[in-house]
């Protein structure tokens, strides 16, 4: 009847009931992906894409988001083929030969640990870059350790809560992140020059491809769906919302790169350590009560980093919890906190940090493309070969393994019932 009603997720009485496990609706999963993607990268993106793709940087950012969407649709398909299961669950299921559960877990471990390592190092890197930016620009005398520590503790507070809190925090913070970024991108166009954006397509294709691959890595974060997809809604159009979760950062990033190139030109852009921040510095809104908005922008950016950091942290904890077959991830979170803190302080300077960051990006690209593709092919093959074993059979088979499989906050059979 009413269009808005149709678009809104239909609330059900289950929402009131605490005993029913939480399900993330499609809009929330889109928001989760989007706010994970938007993070530290936004400050350096104009420089990194322009250094490869020159004037075409913004196009490569746009194409990069399309690539990211393709990869995400792999993951989304994979997740939807295994409703109610996270990566740990379906990787094990797919790799289990016959009835040997233990071998399945053993075979799955490299994949899982690759992800866990990726997210762990990601959390530490993001915290470190955040600390570096804050200590070089705003709080110059505050020790790096304090900034990283406070940020990690805030993320820890989030991780201590239930998954539904994480989802809601992401949902409510997303507009607070996207809108200021879009405003900055648009308002800095006042000092843009068309000359800076031209010539288009005059760059060598190898560089352009590299730039595109690079900008694809800046959309990393969508692979969180491998773990959070387990609580996602199955009805409606999940894929559409998942893709929207990449499209929104894609548009924002492209806009920022576009403005960066239009305002600074490629030559200047390559010299700027944090081009987006400089973009804020070139923008003056006459008549505004506040003059220089860098600090205000950084305050908004704190929220963007926080959602990335918190989600990575949460993802790591959930992953490890499921591998170990624990009931709660809270002790893991507590144990990881000093690890993150220590790891984040390892890089000696910013240059090394950027180097590590680009390696981490490549690692992430591998994780987000090769592994899901492999698993998806496996999933198609196995589904055609024979039916997936029934949960009842599993229960008799190996208790320890089943306990691990069911360790996810909601049992896998839940969504089946819903359908």
């Amino acid at each position, binding site marked *: 009847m009413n269009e808005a009603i149709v678009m809104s997720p239909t609330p059900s009485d289950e929402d009131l009931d605490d005993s029913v496990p939480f399900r993330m609706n499609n809009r929330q999963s889109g928001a989760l992906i989007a706010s994970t993607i938007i993070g530290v990268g936004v400050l350096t993106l104009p420089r990194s894409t322009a250094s490869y793709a020159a004037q075409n940087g913004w196009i490569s950012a746009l194409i990069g988001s399309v690539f990211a969407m393709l990869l995400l649709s792999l993951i989304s398909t994979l997740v939807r083929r295994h409703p109610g299961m996270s990566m740990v669950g379906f990787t094990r299921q797919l790799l289990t030969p016959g009835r040997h559960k233990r071998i399945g877990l053993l075979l799955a471990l490299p994949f899982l640990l690759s992800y866990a390592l990726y997210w762990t190092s990601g959390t530490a890197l993001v915290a470190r870059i955040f600390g570096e930016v804050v200590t*070089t*620009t*705003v*709080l*110059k*005398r*505050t*020790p790096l350790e*304090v900034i990283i*520590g*406070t940020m990690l*503790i805030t993320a*820890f*507070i989030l991780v*201590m*809560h*239930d998954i539904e809190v994480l989802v809601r925090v992401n949902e409510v913070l997303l507009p607070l992140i996207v809108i200021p970024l879009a405003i900055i991108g648009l308002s800095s166009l006042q*000092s843009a020059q*068309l*000359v*800076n*954006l*031209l*010539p288009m397509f*005059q760059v060598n294709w190898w560089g352009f491809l590299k730039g595109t691959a690079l900008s694809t890595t800046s959309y990393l974060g969508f692979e969180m769906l491998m773990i959070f997809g387990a609580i996602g809604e199955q009805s409606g159009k999940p894929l559409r919302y998942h893709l929207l979760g990449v499209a929104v950062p894609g548009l924002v990033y492209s806009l920022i790169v576009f403005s960066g190139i239009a305002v*600074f*030109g490629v*030559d*200047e852009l390559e*010299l700027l350590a944090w081009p987006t*921040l*400089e973009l804020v*510095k*070139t923008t*003056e809104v006459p008549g505004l009560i506040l003059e*220089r908005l*860098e600090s205000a922008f950084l305050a908004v950016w704190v929220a963007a980093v926080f959602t990335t950091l918190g989600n990575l942290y949460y993802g790591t904890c959930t992953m490890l919890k499921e591998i170990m077959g624990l009931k*709660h991830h*809270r002790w893991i979170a*507590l144990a990881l906190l000093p690890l993150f803190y220590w790891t984040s302080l390892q890089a000696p300077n910013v240059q090394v940090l950027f180097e590590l960051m680009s390696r981490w990006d490549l690692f992430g690209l591998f994780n987000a493309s090769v592994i899901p593709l492999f698993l998806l092919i496996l999933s198609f093959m196995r589904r055609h070969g024979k039916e997936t074993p029934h949960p009842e059979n599993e229960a008799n088979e190996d208790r320890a393994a089943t306990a691990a499989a069911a360790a996810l906050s909601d049992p896998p059979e839940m969504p089946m019932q819903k359908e």
Partner: protein
Amino acid sequence: MPLARRICPIFLLLSAMSVLLCGCWDRREIEERTSVVAVGIDTVQGHKELIEVSVQIPIPIRIAGSGGAGTGGGNGKTVQVESARGRTVLDAMKNLQKKLNQQLFYGHTRVIAISEDAARLGVNSLFDPFRRDPEIRRLLWLLVIKGKAFDALNINPNLEQIPTVYIMTMIENGSKAGTITDVNLGQFFIKLTTDGRQPFLNYFQVKAGSLRWNGIALFRDDQMVGTLNDEQSWSLLRLAEKKNGSNITYNYDNDPAKKVTLSMDYLRRREKISYKNDQVQVHIRVDMESNLLEKTFDSNLFKASEIKKLEQGAEVYLEKNAMSLIQALQKTYRTDALGIGARVRAFHPEIWKKVNWNEAFTEANITVDFRVNLRNTGMEMQ
């Protein structure tokens, strides 16, 4: 949940306590920072390796309306100018700090003035700290001062309490009127780094305690190479920045007794760039509208031919000035302040790849065509 409930407050408490115990590193009260509103950079006579940096600091209590104890005093200076020498800019600033009780704060610096001598030596090494320091604005005004920059900070305009504000508003209003370029630090940096575009800055002169705009200082890369006079500068603004320049006053019929003043509005610029005879051919066409502001002789303005004649006079005058500018840029100073190179690169990349622009610019065939459309003769019909 109970675990989380127990651990969260403990963590909050611990972190809060540790932070409170360590203190607040960056907290510095507003009155503990001495805001520098303008910086001047000079060379030192006789000491080639030394640089003199001067800063202008407003004295809050002396400034009316600030609500301090000593309000309302017209007596006494509202700003203090301090200077110190050093081997680099930061070295000089460090020496400057020795004289002051509070830390200097450059977040409110709105003007950086460099002396012509310093500018001619090259600004890259001088501006390096300004690029690195996040406190420094990108939107501050850069000027080149004929003589010493120290004197520019010491001017005493009675119209504003803080001389820097006077300079700021002078540049802002001048640029709004189209007579002064509004190159700020950020744009200067961009022009420094971008190929095919050379920076230029406002050139000021201090005379008897007051500051006067004296044309434009041209740079080749980071070195100042010369200045343009007023007419040339305004031509540069018209051709490079699509600004109006100022009103023009020219002789009618080449008769020094008959003078006409026209305003310049709604400037539109187009250029055609091609490559012919081993030479870059640039044709710039500028259309503008104007109003008649002043006329020192009688003529019948009801005749269309008369209007046409006025327009033609203006076009000839404008083209003459523009050609003198282009001559100066191409031959004398060999610097592409017009930014034609950037346009060649953007719109004709094939030409850009073919030539070395620094050379090609000096040899380029640049022609300018002004079209003036006189629309209005003011409140007087005759």
